[in-house]
């Protein structure tokens, strides 16, 4: 119900209607002659608006009520959907890497910064031998996380990636969830692009098997 009201409110953009929330801003007419313009300049210059601002700063300084985040000691919390440096997730069941090497992230990457190499391993499974993301080129669009069929590559909250070496911009092992984290059960699922929607479990149906 509430949603509908809001929708209604925003959809009605007829400014001429009496009950609309739009109103005309009271603007004085523009001066047209030279004298009028001069008067406006004088009026704007000497009204003392500068001091209004100065007073606010002085008042807050005296009160010691400062809102500045003291970065890097303090950091702002980041939303779960924030798209910062990538993470490679592990499977909850076996702690092995989720990535199956399908190469869809490499294909979809619009800045061509993902490279992947796979091979057949001894157990006749597909093994990802090399994986790299060139963060110097990455535009953090989130397509890779969205396309990943295994929820293996996701974005994380880590946005501090200054380095004096481009090579250090991303190493696969740094992206991969550490095993200690898996043991502690603290691997976080990504909620942004590509993540499954809440209550997905209830919507999935089993394949009927007659035996």
């Amino acid at each position: 119900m509430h949603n509908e009201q809001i929708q209604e409110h925003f959809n009605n953009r007829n400014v001429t209607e009496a009950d609309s929330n739009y109103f005309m801003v009271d603007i004085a007419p523009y001066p047209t002659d030279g004298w009028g313009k001069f008067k406006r300049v004088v009026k704007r210059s000497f009204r003392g608006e500068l001091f209004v601002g100065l007073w606010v700063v002085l008042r807050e300084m005296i009160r010691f009520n400062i809102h500045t985040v003291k970065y890097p000691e303090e950091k702002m919390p980041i939303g779960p959907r924030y798209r910062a440096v990538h993470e490679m997730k592990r499977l909850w069941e076996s702690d092995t890497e989720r990535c199956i090497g399908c190469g869809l992230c490499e294909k979809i990457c619009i800045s061509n910064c993902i490279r992947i190499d796979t091979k057949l391993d001894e157990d006749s499974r597909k093994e990802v031998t090399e994986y790299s993301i060139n963060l110097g080129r990455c535009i953090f669009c989130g397509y890779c996380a969205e396309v990943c069929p295994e929820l293996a590559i996701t974005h994380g909250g880590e946005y501090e990636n200054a380095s004096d070496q481009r090579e250090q911009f991303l190493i696969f092992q740094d992206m991969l969830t550490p095993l200690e984290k898996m043991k502690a059960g603290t691997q976080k699922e990504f909620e942004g692009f590509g993540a499954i929607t809440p209550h997905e479990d209830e919507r999935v149906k089993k394949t009927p098997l007659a035996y």
Partner: protein
Amino acid sequence: MNKEVSFKIDGISVVAQKGESILNVARKNGIYIPTMCYISKTSPCASCRMCVVEASGMDGFVLSCNTPPIEGVEITTNSQALNHERTNIMKLYDVNHPLECGVCDKSGECDLQNKTLEFDVERQNFSARDQLRPLKKWGLIDYEPSLCIMCEKCVHVCNEVIGDDAIEVQFGGYKSTIIPKGSELLDCTFCGECIAVCPVGALTSSGFKYRANAWELNRVPATCAHCSAGCPLEYETRHSSINGADEIYRIKNNFEFTSLCGAGRFGFDFENRVSSNESAFNSAIEALKEAKAIRFSSIITNEEAHILELLKDKLGIKLFNEDARVFAEFMKSYSSISGKLHHSGSLDAIKQSDACIIIGSRIATDNPGVRYALTTAAKHNGAKILYAHPMEDALMQNVITQMMKYEVGTEEGVMALLAHAILQDADLDDSERAFFKELDFGYLCAETNIGEEEFSLMMKSFARAKKRTLIIGNDLIAHKRANNIAKLAALIEKYSDFSLVVVPREVNTLGVSLINSLDCDENISNVVGYNAKGSFVISSLEGANLAVPALNQQEGTVVSIDNRVLPTNVSLEFEGYTLNDIARSFGIDKAETVEYTKELNKNAGFKEIAFDDLENFLSSMGEDNRGYLLDEIICRAEGNLEELDDLPEFNGTIIYQCDPVLQFNNYTLKTKQLPKENFLRGSAQFSVAARISDGDMVEINFGGTKIQRKFKLDEELKGTIALNPTFDISVDASRYRFEKSKIARVM
């Protein structure tokens, strides 16, 4: 009798040729009927039942792939009932199909994936108890039975197009599977055609498996660089490791209409990885200034051949290429009788013919494209195939209907007898009539070891044939009496309904023979080798003084056995100099090699078409639109048949220069996946005659060449002729392929 049937598909009036299926007519008219198991180049498998349609006046559905229409019938390809049927078929296919699309090699180009989505399979109401179906490893081919949908495409191509007949269906309801025929492991020529046609990821290339996916690979359309069949293929490239340069991952082809042999499919990594530098380039220029001749191989493009010809004129030197020279000589003699420059046949003509003579070639290894065409003719038209050669070939056993085994060296006599048999009732002129009159049949039959009854048997089996083809192999081209043999071949083509196909030895032997004016190879020093031996070697093979790009790193054209000028493209980059750079420093000035495409020898039938204007595709009905066909050139027919020479005798231990399956030349030798068995292979009889036994290291001495090889006893061979591979050595292409040899065991 009316040969055309007119009827309606979805309300559109269409016309079918007699015997044509409804599906084919629909496809011709752009009407879509879904299929899973249909493949144009084989007879219908009729295993998927996806192509069902409704026909007016019929209860139930009709299989459109193997049903010809009747006059006036109205066909419906789309209705709710049909859609329901097709969805159910897809559901059945999906039962227990492993959900491993993420890693499957076929994912992204999988028929099962596509059709499952197309028919909107959103729920599964069928189930079956899954069973253990382990992966089978068959060398270059892997078979995953759990992914197999039993469409039987692989069995059909193996049997009907390739002729290996190496796999079959083991019937057993849900337990059905594909098994190698008659043995535990797959024993075949590893053409990999089964991999190409597999609509799912059941049959895969073991060398490619899990290395890349369909969506990661770049496709480069090109022409196969290994033999003169000029098969179309696509190189699929991608970066090698995360920082590596591009490499070719696999070869794909338009399997719906064309085929590839194993060398084409698995022998793709023959590119030259060596780069060339300026000092090598400068010394190449110096060497050319000093040189008296350039010796080159036919594994080059037409444009390169043209540049070599320009260099010849500019520098006043000679050009040596024995392979192309003997071919050119052969064709010159042919023209002197036939009055035209090019042979009349093509691979398509062979495929459509119902009677073929193949003489003087172990064709299955010399030119697999011809072999597949013969197989297609035999299986689809019931063609009678006469195989004339001194040795039986086990690979051709399924296809040939008559074996004509002649004595080594007597090809001229065999051709004369063949011509006599074929041209019995022909309207010959007097001199030709005189030629046949003078033949000493007793002598010829005795020396060639072919009885008269063999010819009458041939003529009897060919009697009802309408499209006939004569295929001439390299034994005849490199024969001492090649000139007269060519004239006899021309005579057969001229006075009978036989079309003629002369099989060139290398990929562009035909092109080189048309473009270059070649000199007889003299054993002189100061020869620059271009992809060949010389005192200074410019080559795309290892050990060159100056490295140049291989055929998969070049753009240009080659001329195939069909007399078709085929474009090929750059699949991998080459760092360094090309022949064109060398030519430019001699003042032969064109920026790109392919700018010469429109300047190729007009007198030989080349057209004035720029490289970039050449088409390179097969139409959706399979018509070949690659490049262009050489113009037919009429020339004077002033030649006369010569009297037959005495037929030579070959006694003792004879070797036959013949590569094993999957090998052609030094380039295929370079590749990673192809087997490199360089054994001397001979029969038990040969081993007794040469006093050697299986596994012995032997020294083979023939025509001034000495090489050492291991001897391998081959159960399939008979007689006293052994097969000597040449892909790892270079042989004089002008020499007759049978050689008297001395064979001694090495201790």
